[in-house]
């Protein structure tokens, strides 16, 4: 009579949820342990290294302080770190692993959060590595005859290296979730960081009124006080960062997350 036994049901109610730390680790691994991600990070750090070595031999001896060396990764990272983040998101669609990712963890919002955590963690580690490289660069500066100074402006470290790169990373997140295509998101990112400021510069040269308005409506222009001496934005400049940031960062980020939570993966 065993032919009519009730169908077996798999009881998952006592299986714990995948912990967030594991999701974040998986996402970090996707960024590092893939061909494109690994070569990009090697490329970024290699470029920083090459510039620092040339700088050590080319610069005047009194311009070889730690502060000078930290400016090199500050400038270089800004261009490329967001691309690591873009690939972290778009590869789910281009390499089609979104099918697996969202099957193993169907709560998409948790994946988004895990990607944010992984992205921020990666960015922080690259920044720490960049500072380590800057210290090594300063030592090389000593060897090549510089009178090295170990003084670093806290504003440079916090605003130019940390805050502006963090903003760049979130721009990368926003664009990649909106466009969901690696090449497309990278092109959009370069439009955002190269073409927009050029257009603003051309239009500002035509009209001083536009020049006054520009920092309120264009995010790159608003961020200029973060990355230029004396690295201490004033009240009005913060207001400009907040206003233009709402248009160019918050809005695309919200739309992007909304899209990632609904997009069909195939």
């Amino acid at each position, binding site marked *: 009579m065993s032919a009519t036994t009730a169908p077996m049901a798999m009881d998952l109610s006592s299986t714990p949820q995948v912990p967030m730390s594991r999701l974040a680790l998986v996402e970090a691994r996707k960024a590092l342990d893939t061909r*494109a991600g690994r070569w*990009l990070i090697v490329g970024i750090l290699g*470029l920083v290294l090459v*510039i620092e070595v*040339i*700088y050590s031999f*080319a*610069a*005047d001896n009194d*311009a070889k302080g730690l502060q000078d060396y930290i400016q090199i990764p500050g*400038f*270089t990272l800004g*261009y*490329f770190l967001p*691309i690591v983040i873009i*690939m972290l998101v778009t590869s789910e669609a281009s390499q089609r692993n979104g099918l697996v990712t969202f099957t193993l963890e169907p709560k998409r919002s948790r994946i988004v959060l895990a990607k944010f955590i992984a992205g921020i963690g990666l960015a922080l580690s690259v920044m720490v590595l960049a500072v380590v490289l800057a210290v090594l660069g300063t030592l090389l500066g000593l060897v090549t005859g510089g009178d090295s100074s170990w003084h670093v402006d806290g504003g440079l470290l916090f605003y130019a290296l940390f805050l502006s790169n963090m903003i760049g990373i979130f721009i990368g997140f926003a664009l990649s979730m909106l466009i969901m295509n*690696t*090449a*497309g998101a*990278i*092109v959009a990112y*370069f*439009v955002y960081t*190269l*073409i927009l400021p*050029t*257009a603003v510069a*051309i*239009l500002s040269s*035509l*009209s001083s*009124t*536009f020049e006054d308005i520009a920092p309120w409506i264009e995010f790159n222009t608003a961020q200029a006080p973060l990355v230029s001496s004396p690295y201490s934005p004033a009240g009005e400049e913060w207001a400009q960062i907040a206003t233009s940031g709402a248009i160019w960062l918050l809005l695309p980020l919200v739309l992007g997350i909304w899209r990632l939570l609904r997009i069909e993966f195939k």
Partner: protein
Amino acid sequence: MAQALDLTATSRVPFTRLVRVELRKAWDTRAGFWLLIAIVAIVVVVLGIALIITLVHSDPVLLDDFVGIAAYMMSFLLPFLAIMLVTSEWSQRSALVTFSLEPRRSRVVMAKLVAALLLTVINLVVALVVGVLFTLVCELVQPDLTSWHLSGGNVAGFFVTQSLAMVGGFAIATLLLNTPASIVLFVVYRFVLPGVFGALASISTWFESVAPWLDFQAAQSNIYEWTLSGRDQWAHLLVSGFLWLVVPLAVGMWRILRAEVK
């Protein structure tokens, strides 16, 4: 007796048709189409704001200004189209078909190069048309302040530098055969390296004397203003151009003629 297909009388694919096909690949694909839309949108928005500013301020304006801004804004994104012309054959796997229908790969590569240069011509023509349209609006609103002056040197300078940028993108694409990587490397090549060269030259007199021989983009600045003259400027252009254009293009061509298509 076994039938044999006699193809000896079939004429080979004419080069013009190959070029036409490559041009169509540039705009009649999803990526190419949206890139072109983005280019046009950027030009229209920037010129639109410039037009409003000019009219509100009652500034004097030249045809030169509008054509210049339009061409400059277009020049950023157009090389990406040249890149995709090459890399999409690999990423979309159309190379399998392309090289079956025309097995002489060198003809296909030449057709792509000609298509990329034709895109530069189209870029220039569109910039001229858009410039004329915006100047016409100014002519109607403020005829006294509007001039139809157009400098031939600027047009020629733009055409030559933009063609070099297209070939530069093309060369990087043949080297990497991958769209995102080529785009990133092209941005480094065109926008990041000149900044690095400039920064290094400003802090070191030794590097400042070497930089003109290495910095291809800076060597082109005299073409842009159509003032290239003298043995030194030509020598800088040829040496840096050999380094950054001829070498990558030669290696890339060699690779594309041999790369396994799969």
